[in-house]
């Protein structure tokens, strides 16, 4: 017992302890006595008052305001990868021990601060502004996940050396191998596993020879390589350069199709952007009323953190009301501002009916913005002072089986020589034909017979007319029955929505991922056209552009290089191409057979689909893949039903012969890999990312190695990573665009691509120059942020006039344009029309049924690939419930390894409506089994008023089988799994295999091929 304690024994007891002790708590007395005699049994703290708290990163003098950094710490601004929002973060780095201590937000970053610090401010000023009373307004936060992700850096479950499987595929048995052996084996192939010959990359590196002369559209042999990644984490340009332009395969895929693709394609249809699938966000600074249907700001959605802050400010500081329409109550809701927000519970997948009902009510009651919808083009828009224009007045060829069916009538169709490419509209006043480019309004409702230049006679209808007819297919009460929202609620919401002019917005996202995702999304987004809010202050806006980085920049052209290959042939996923153009179709027609159905669905309006790539590659329709390189992608965890659909086929090496996984951890998908390549976590590597949406100003986030990587190194001293792997493979195969002469500068001189720094630092120079060069970094900027540590690398890779400007970008965690004044309204401008009828959709047929897609929003219940309703296969009396999946505000699909995040919410209970559960005799805490036609899981029930009757709500991000949950054996030694990582349930394990999809794939949206995870038919039972 030390002296202090002994002294205090007297004083302490005298000071008031005695009376309490006298109350007779035997345990505490015993413990206290033991503690007094022998000292506490616990581990001593580093400071007696502040315990084990971290040493503050700065000291800011209260009087002078002078900032003094702590010895041995820097504060680095870089990019988060806790989720796909990819915010800018500030990381406190212990430079002595090479550790990240704690993470908060980057004060310059528009995704981390409502009013970000001016870009030109010095780092010292920006950091000083984080302290004291001023720091309240200056604070820039990371979310819980972003703060916790630093644990991944030194996580015991990380892979640090290349590995090769030694057991059967998926067995979890590995041996470590050298990087050189890895590169040799995957390029040259051979009898790699004692299971027979395996084709390596060299064997399929042939961009000349057709793989199948019977089906020339399949393209060259090189297409037998499939490359996938998770998302645009800031490094994708290099992956695409390798995939498309160096190796020359057509096949690339990413997580979009099991993330929010149904939304994106529906939104793309609305924005007339079937390539980039633009999506938009509410203008939070000015909107008066916003409906969130299938998205939940402050709970999830993208950008998660920024929208959380924007919602908090809007509902607290100004006149703002909002409604959340969802099967389960999200954190968007707030009792504290009860008067301005409301939750409308809806049946899972009911959104399509609800949105169509609102469209119908708005049209029937003439509550739409007539002046807006009547402007047929940019000239009329400007003349009328509208913020955007629409194609509501454009005319749709509406005669079935005519060659132009579903197309917008063009001047050339009527034989016009002037304005031949313009759309034809009807002059609102004169009633005559008019080009849509005329500066005056056009008739909104049109149905006419017209003789075309080729002599054929067709019916044309305005897009608004077509939308009206589709909306009136069902009555309000029929829609109400489909979504289980009362007619009165639908009407009230539609009235409210049309009561604030252009300051009403409706927004959606991944909540639409049901069995008719495309039409659900298109209908919801279309409501914005009814109030004409596109580009309007308080309306819907499209984000600002990123700064060019590893693309075709001013300093370096990183998109082009000598010998660049353009990939040929159709995607494995049968997307962005029509079935009718295929040899298969032509052969059937030539043989006099009905060409429908195709062997399996085609997706003419969709981008490449990770959701179909694998099943196609395994089944060989359209063709087989032989090698699959997967960088962090995880559809086996993330795509509903995929595990069940392809598990056996994926484990069979005779189908895809070689699978290479690249990742810092072993995820559920890479667990099937033959080779594992270590990769960097965000704090260790380079990259440039952008905002998905919701940021008005231009912005690009920069990521740089703020600590030394934990992974092994190549013989050249490069950290093992995706970059090191692709560069080594490319050089061994002598692919163009890699090696000593790979990157042209503005003068045409070629610079090397032998390392990650060769690539990203030149990208940084491009960022620094786009839109005018940034200033040079000050020594103080570099010292405070730790960029000083990489200054030598910058100098050795960049030109003398470049390196300090690149350093300026890294010092600030990226480049950010000037934020618009809050009273300015959206500064971005979408120039294409709000598209009431999308002819690219409306002129395509479904490849199984042969029916035309409808080119405007229309109601469809969830259905399978062949068009059949789910209930026909899985009757309601057997499957009475509908599952709804919602994003976690804590866990992303790849954050589970962080223990300080798991501690708050260790698993996800199964949310059941209180009355439903009571009727079934289920109580909170009971173990329950959730069963669907696709599988069953066991979880813990939680009774919630915040779940729609008839729904079961499951939060995403739990129920992992990998990422550390499972024990793997490496070089004969077990790397033990941590069962807390595997806690909870994964809704995707309950996903359905589509009984009408001949390749046996998981259930996908019949239009877009997006994964179906909403409204899965289910039942639930108590586990005894």
């Amino acid at each position: 017992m030390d002296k202090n304690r002994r002294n205090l024994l007297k004083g302490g007891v005298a000071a008031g302890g005695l009376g309490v002790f006298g109350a007779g708590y035997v345990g505490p007395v015993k413990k206290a006595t033991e503690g007094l005699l022998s000292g506490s049994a616990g581990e001593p703290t580093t400071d007696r008052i502040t315990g084990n708290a971290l040493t503050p990163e700065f000291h800011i003098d209260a009087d002078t305001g002078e900032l003094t950094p702590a010895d041995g710490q820097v504060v680095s601004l870089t990019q988060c990868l806790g989720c796909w929002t990819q915010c800018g973060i500030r990381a406190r780095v212990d430079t002595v021990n090479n550790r990240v201590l704690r993470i908060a937000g980057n004060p310059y970053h528009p995704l981390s601060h409502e009013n970000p610090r001016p870009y030109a401010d010095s780092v010292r000023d920006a950091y000083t502004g984080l302290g004291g009373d001023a720091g309240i307004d200056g604070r820039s936060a990371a979310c819980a996940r972003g703060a916790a992700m630093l644990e991944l850096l030194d996580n015991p479950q990380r892979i640090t050396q290349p590995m090769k499987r030694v057991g059967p595929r998926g067995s979890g048995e590995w041996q470590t191998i050298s990087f050189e052996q890895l590169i040799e084996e995957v390029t040259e192939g051979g009898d790699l596993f004692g299971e027979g010959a395996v084709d390596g990359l060299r064997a399929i590196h042939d961009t000349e020879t057709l793989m199948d002369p019977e089906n020339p559209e399949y393209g060259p042999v090189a297409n037998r390589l499939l490359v996938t990644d998770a998302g645009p984490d800031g490094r994708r340009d290099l992956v695409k350069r390798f995939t498309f332009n160096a190796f020359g395969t057509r096949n690339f895929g990413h997580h979009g199709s099991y993330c929010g693709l149904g939304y994106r394609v529906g939104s793309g249809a609305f924005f007339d952007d079937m390539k980039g699938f633009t999506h938009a966000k509410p203008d939070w600074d000015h909107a008066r009323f916003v409906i969130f249907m299938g998205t939940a700001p402050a709970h999830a959605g993208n950008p998660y953190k920024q929208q959380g802050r924007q919602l908090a400010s809007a509902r607290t500081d100004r006149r703002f009301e909002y409604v959340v329409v969802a099967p389960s109550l999200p954190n968007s809701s707030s009792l504290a501002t009860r008067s301005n927000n409301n939750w409308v519970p809806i049946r899972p997948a009911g959104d399509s009916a609800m949105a169509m009902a609102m469209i119908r009510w708005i049209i029937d009651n003439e509550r739409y913005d007539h002046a807006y919808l009547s402007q047929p083009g940019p000239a009329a828009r400007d003349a009328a002072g509208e913020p955007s224009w629409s194609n509501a007045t454009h005319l749709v060829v509406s005669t079935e089986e005519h060659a132009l069916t579903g197309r917008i009538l063009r001047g050339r169709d009527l034989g016009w020589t002037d304005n031949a490419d313009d759309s034809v509209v009807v002059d609102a006043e004169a009633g005559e034909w008019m080009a849509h480019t005329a500066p005056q309004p056009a008739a909104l409702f049109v149905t006419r017979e017209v003789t075309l230049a080729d002599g054929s006679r067709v019916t044309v209808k305005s897009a608004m007319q077509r939308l009206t007819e589709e909306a009136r297919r069902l009555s309000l009460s029929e829609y109400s029955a489909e979504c289980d929202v009362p007619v009165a609620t639908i009407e009230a919401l539609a009235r409210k929505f049309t009561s604030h002019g252009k300051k009403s917005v409706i927004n959606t996202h991944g909540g639409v991922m049901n069995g008719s995702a495309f039409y659900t999304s298109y209908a919801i987004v279309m409501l914005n056209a009814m109030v004409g809010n596109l580009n309007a202050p308080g309306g819907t806006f499209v984000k600002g552009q990123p700064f060019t980085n590893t693309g075709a920049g001013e300093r370096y052209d990183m998109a082009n290089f000598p010998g660049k290959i353009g990939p040929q042939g159709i995607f494995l996923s049968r997307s962005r191409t029509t079935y009718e153009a295929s040899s298969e179709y032509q052969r059937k027609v030539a043989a006099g057979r009905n060409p429908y159905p195709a062997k399996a669905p085609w997706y003419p309006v969709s981008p490449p689909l990770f959701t179909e790539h694998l099943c196609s590659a395994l089944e060989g329709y359209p063709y087989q893949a032989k090698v699959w390189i997967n960088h962090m992608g995880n559809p086996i965890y993330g795509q509903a039903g995929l595990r069940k659909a392809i598990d056996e086929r994926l484990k069979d090496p005779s189908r895809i012969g070689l699978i290479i996984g690249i990742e810092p951890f072993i995820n559920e998908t890479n667990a099937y890999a033959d080779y594992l390549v270590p990769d960097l976590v965000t704090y260790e590597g380079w990259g440039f990312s952008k905002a998905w949406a919701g940021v008005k100003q231009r912005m690009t986030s920069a990521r740089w190695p703020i600590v030394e990587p934990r992974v092994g190194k190549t013989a050249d001293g490069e950290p093992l990573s995706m970059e090191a792997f692709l560069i080594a493979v490319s050089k061994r195969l002598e692919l163009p665009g890699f090696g000593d002469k790979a990157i042209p500068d503005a003068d045409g001189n070629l610079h090397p691509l032998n390392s990650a720094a060769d690539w990203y630092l030149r990208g940084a120079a491009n960022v620094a120059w786009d839109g005018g060069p940034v200033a040079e970094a000050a020594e103080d900027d570099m010292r405070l942020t730790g960029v000083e540590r990489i200054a030598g690398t910058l100098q050795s890779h960049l030109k003398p006039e470049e390196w300090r400007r690149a350093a300026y970008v890294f010092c600030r965690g990226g480049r950010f344009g000037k934020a618009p004044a809050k009273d300015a309204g959206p500064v971005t401008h979408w120039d294409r029309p709000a598209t009431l009828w999308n002819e690219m959709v409306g002129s395509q047929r479904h490849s199984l049924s042969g029916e035309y897609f409808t080119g405007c929003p229309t109601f469809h219940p969830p259905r399978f690939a062949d068009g059949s309703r789910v209930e026909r296969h899985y009757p309601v009396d057997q499957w009475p419930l509908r599952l709804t999946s919602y994003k976690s505000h804590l866990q992303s699909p790849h954050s589970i390894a962080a223990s300080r995040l798991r501690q708050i919410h260790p698993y996800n209970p199964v949310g059941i409506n209180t009355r439903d559960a009571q009727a079934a005799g289920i109580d909170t805490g009971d173990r329950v089994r959730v069963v669907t036609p696709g599988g069953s899981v066991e979880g813990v029930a939680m009774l919630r008023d915040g779940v729609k009757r008839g729904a079961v709500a499951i939060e995403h991000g739990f129920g992992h089988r990998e990422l550390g949950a499972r024990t793997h054996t490496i070089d004969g030694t077990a790397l033990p799994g941590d069962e807390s990582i595997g806690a909870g349930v994964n809704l995707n394990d309950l996903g359905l295999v589509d009984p009408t999809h001949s390749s046996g794939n998981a259930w996908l949206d019949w239009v877009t091929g997006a994964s179906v995870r909403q409204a899965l038919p289910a039942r639930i039972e108590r586990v005894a």
Partner: protein
Amino acid sequence: MDVSRRQFLGKAAAVTAGVAVMPLSEAEAGLNDQPPRRGGDPNKRYGMAIDLRRCIGCQACTVSCSIENQPPVGQFRTIVHQYEVTDNASEETAAVMLPRLCNQCDNPPCVPVCPVQATWQRKDGIVVVDSDQCVGCGYCVQACPYDARFINHETQVADKCNFCVHRLEAGLLPACVESCVGGARIIGDLNDPDSHINRVLSENYDDVKVLKPELNTRPHVFYIGMTDAFIERIQGESGLWFDSEHGGVMGAVS
């Protein structure tokens, strides 16, 4: 659901049934049995305002505090409790977020019960624990009506929020405040009439509440937006989550 959690939910129900709500101006009480304050700046009185209208339940504060102060995994100096409440009349359901932490009371019940004077209130109002002195008896843990204290499993001594006093003294914000995504948490000097916190409290004067004012603990964590009108008709709320297996709500009593 473990026992400590059930107890907390019971208490929370009481809180929301109206016990909590008393305007700041009425929260007057005498100091009783408090030992003299020591240490800290006598000219300052730190307090925290939490604007519940801005809280989105993101738990960034919880994680940031956990990393800053390094309690054992599963024990918390602060956390945000989340409830779903249903209005009996309308049957409408809404979310309630309630950040919890030490209230740095002016009349802290945890201080006088310490047998070894290991915990005391500084002159700036922050209640601190001396981990070298503390014997881990747990009296203070029992005495706190807000479940704000716990015995740290690793150090075996009492642990609690101290407003990140090490950061305040460095001119920086506490971890929970600087990481607050919604901008709900505001810390500052209540003795400074121009401080941010005083501005916010005066702007919302009639809507400032403290937890359990009837205990005369004089909490210095002030809540804005704890709407009692709706709360009185609460049908019964459930914690949206279960606790960590490691312990209870604010860190279990071991």
